[in-house]
């Protein structure tokens, strides 16, 4: 997943939580980058037709932006589930964040062949807990 995909995913989740446009400050916080960096990338994404940015109002993904964001979120879910189910990593959230930038979607698709993922993915993603809402995390990680 490249930087663009990580931004789209963060904007998508921020919009879901806000139930409206995402503030650039919240997007920057979620990605742990400076507001200036976030603004620069948001400008590029707007040029690519992936979002609309209105000053003082926030950022709104276009249909194409939403589609790409959902794909990125799905890849992220695959990485998290893979870390939990296959590698039994307890700190899977932190690790998924470091890996999402280095795991391409084609690789995620292959990892997807050995994990259990529900058809409604990524709609079941719980942005607040940063994990699929259908996973009983403690049971998954401690069971072996």
């Amino acid at each position, binding site marked *: *997943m*490249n*930087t663009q*995909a990580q931004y789209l995913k963060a904007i998508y989740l921020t919009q879901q939580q806000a139930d409206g446009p995402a503030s650039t400050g919240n997007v920057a916080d979620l990605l742990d980058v400076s507001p200036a960096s976030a603004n620069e990338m948001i400008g590029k994404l707007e040029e690519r037709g992936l979002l609309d940015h209105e000053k003082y109002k926030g950022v709104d993904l276009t249909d194409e932006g939403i589609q790409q964001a959902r794909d990125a979120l799905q890849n992220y879910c695959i990485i998290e589930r*893979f870390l939990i189910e*296959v*590698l039994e990593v307890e700190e899977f959230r932190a*690790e998924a964040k*470091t*890996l999402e*930038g*280095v*795991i*391409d*979607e*084609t*690789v995620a*698709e*292959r*990892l997807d*062949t*050995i*994990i*259990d993922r529900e058809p409604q993915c990524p709609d079941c993603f719980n942005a607040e807990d940063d994990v699929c809402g259908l996973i009983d995390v403690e049971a998954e990680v401690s069971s072996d």
Partner: protein
Amino acid sequence: MSLTQPIASDHQLARLLQIGIVLEEVVEARAGKHAGETDDAADAALAALLEEASAESAQHRRQLEELLATLDADTVPFEEIQMLVEAQYEADEDFDGVLYDQLCNEETAYKFYDDLIASIEASETSFSVDRDRLLETLRLIREEEAEGVEAVTELMEARL
């Protein structure tokens, strides 16, 4: 989509090598299973390709495990991945389906190693494993994956 982030630690490198091992194990298990289901007499070329792919993945896995041992991290037992592949496996008796699956295996592995090599080259981290040995091993595996893509493509084209 290209890789943009350099690898920042031994831990992250070890995790990526573990993922590489799992990818190889998935190929080993799926190609092995397809080889077992292919009639040698009826389709010798396909059977040979799948058997070779399975054996090559086992070899790649061992090479990655040697690197991983230097980083003091555990491997993922093949039997465990084989079981997961079996659990999720959907049989596809169509030859094109089997070949297409094998093409995805080889292309995915190539992409993974290509990204991994780029992210190691972009990193200034001093890893516990010797950088030259690490890159040499990964480049060799990447080359073999490229040859694998070529072999599957040739067989697919021969059947058009």
